[in-house]
């Protein structure tokens, strides 16, 4: 198991390194001059040169790349361009925390509902129930998150008035008030993911239900509920766990449109702000954080799968 974790960790670090390189390469082809941008359009050339010097923009690219790697290790990414004097990390931290709240609420709703949906579909395979779960899921999952967001905001937030239409949680709000304010965007995430996770779970459950060990369990006299609970779930849910891990990057950094609809100050919103400013250190740091979250999430999901299924421990890295 230790060997498995070490190999898996090494793989994550390689991936993270490549992402850093991609981000770095993109930053370097940035056509406008960051020092000029920081100094302002009317600043004297001397000031720009001074900034170029202090930001290390005239150092060799290799030096600059390893400086970025150093920034990641020390979690110090310098100052924001759009808000001079403010550390980038101090802008990213609250946004990250807000995103985390939304993601956890969304998963707490989405995972149980989708898993139950998937198992029901698998047990009623090829019936009308199965087909409606699969097609409804397919339809709702194909709609862009911001579109589902706008539709939910209109129907539930405004027409029915059941939930706040905008996620501007008041300061110092209690736990349940906070949940109330972010429930609508979380429901939009349920829309996007229900079909996908239900489908994956269904596929896993169909295979598990038709397996020899499930047949054996039936034959030794267990009821269907017992078979599902004791034998099928643990095997059927492995793809679900894996998928949830791979979706964390999207949930933290990809909900740019959805966060905009609900004016929610998460990482997606911060990224949009950084892009429109443009504030390159902020954009770069946010992207790196999304990548780190993805690494941690996939590593965790792989560990959970390895715990669920000892065979999975063997084949890390050779897919």
């Amino acid at each position: 198991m230790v060997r498995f974790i070490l190999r898996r960790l090494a793989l994550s670090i390689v991936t993270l390194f490549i992402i850093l390189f991609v981000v770095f390469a993109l930053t370097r082809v940035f056509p406008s001059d960051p020092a000029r941008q920081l100094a302002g359009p009317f600043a004297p050339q001397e000031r720009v040169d001074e900034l170029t010097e202090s930001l290390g923009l005239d150092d060799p690219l290799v030096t600059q790349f390893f400086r970025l790697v150093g920034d990641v290790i020390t979690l110090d990414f310098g100052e924001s361009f759009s808000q001079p004097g403010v550390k980038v990390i101090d802008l990213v931290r609250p946004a990250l925390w807000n995103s985390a709240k939304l993601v956890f609420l969304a998963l707490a709703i989405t995972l149980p509902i989708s898993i139950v949906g998937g198992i029901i579909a698998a047990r009623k395979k090829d019936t009308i129930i199965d087909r409606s779960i699969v097609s409804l899921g397919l339809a709702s999952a194909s709609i862009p998150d911001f579109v589902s967001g706008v539709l939910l905001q209109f129907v539930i937030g405004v027409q029915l008035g059941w939930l706040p239409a905008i996620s501007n949680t008041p300061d110092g709000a209690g736990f349940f008030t906070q949940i109330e304010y972010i429930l609508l965007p979380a429901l939009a995430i349920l829309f996007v993911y229900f079909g996908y996770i239900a489908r994956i779970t269904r596929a896993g459950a169909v295979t598990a239900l038709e397996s020899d060990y499930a047949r054996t369990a039936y034959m030794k006299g267990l009821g269907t509920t017992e078979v599902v609970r004791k034998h099928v779930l643990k095997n059927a849910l492995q793809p679900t766990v894996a998928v949830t891990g791979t979706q964390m990057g999207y949930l933290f950094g990809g909900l740019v449109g959805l966060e905009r609809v609900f004016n929610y100050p998460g990482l997606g919103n911060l990224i949009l702000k950084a892009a429109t400013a443009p504030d390159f250190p902020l954009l770069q740091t946010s992207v790196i954080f999304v990548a780190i979250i993805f690494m941690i999430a996939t590593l965790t999901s792989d560990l959970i799968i390895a715990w669920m299924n000892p065979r999975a421990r063997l084949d890390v890295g050779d897919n």
Partner: protein
Amino acid sequence: MAESYLHDEFPEATQGGADPNVVDPEPVMGNPTAPSQDRKAVKAEQRRELVRAPSFIIGAVILLFWTLCAIAPGLLTKWGENEVIRLEDGSTIPRAAPSADAWFGTDTIGNDVYARVIYGADNVLINAPISALIAVLAGAVLGLIMGFYRGWADEILSRIIEAILSLPVILLAIMVLVVFGSSRLVIVLTIAGLFTPVVARTVRSAVLTEAQLDYVTSAKLRGESGWFIMMREIFPNITNVLIVEFTVRVGYAIFTVATLAFLGLSGGDQTAADWGVDIANGYSLIQSGQWWVSIFPALAIASLVIAVNLIADSIEKVYKA
């Protein structure tokens, strides 16, 4: 199946949970020894099955409607996309709710929301299929080379693909657009570029399966060149994979194009009718009761992506049956 940032990580999802490592004992289309009439007959049968599938028919009807809007919007509405509605007495009706004068209401300027929905179809319907097509072509070439030659180049490319796929497409698209500025060309190429890795990965694994089959071995023994084997032997046997991949990518591309427009990153003329742009201009009005400005374009996007996904899903089912 929602978006690439989403769902491409797990090809099993679309294979009904089958173990991707297990080689299909009877490849549907991988038998070159069969007479070519057989292959033609199979293809014709697949086509017949497809056009009979209800989900394909529904999807195709919706898609045809929006295609008509993109090609000839003037046929479906008497108002232009930037033409303020004037009643018979010459008065304008900005912010009007849906009525007989304006079926979908009017926006803050007084434009017909219905006309803007009709005229707004062309942006996604042109950009999305083009980017999907480029991505499939580029991904096919890359995937063929990676899967056929294997080796260290494949190893390195696979790692890079994994790394790129770990970030949400929309995030990378935003970064590229900030760097290169947004225009229609940049958007199409960006989406194509960001979809290429996932296509390459799918094609690569299809090629790996094909490369183990006898016809490839015998072509190698005949001393055929690598290029010949890839293009003349393997390629015809993975066209189904490419068609499925293309339809799925179109869905994701619509998703991405619309999202970028909503985020104000679509570039070009921001007054031209566009579903994403119109939702962006109208969504803050929902709370003051003027829901029609954004809800109709939102429903338009929803109907189009659902249609494309219905088509993609039925094509996939037929080819994998």
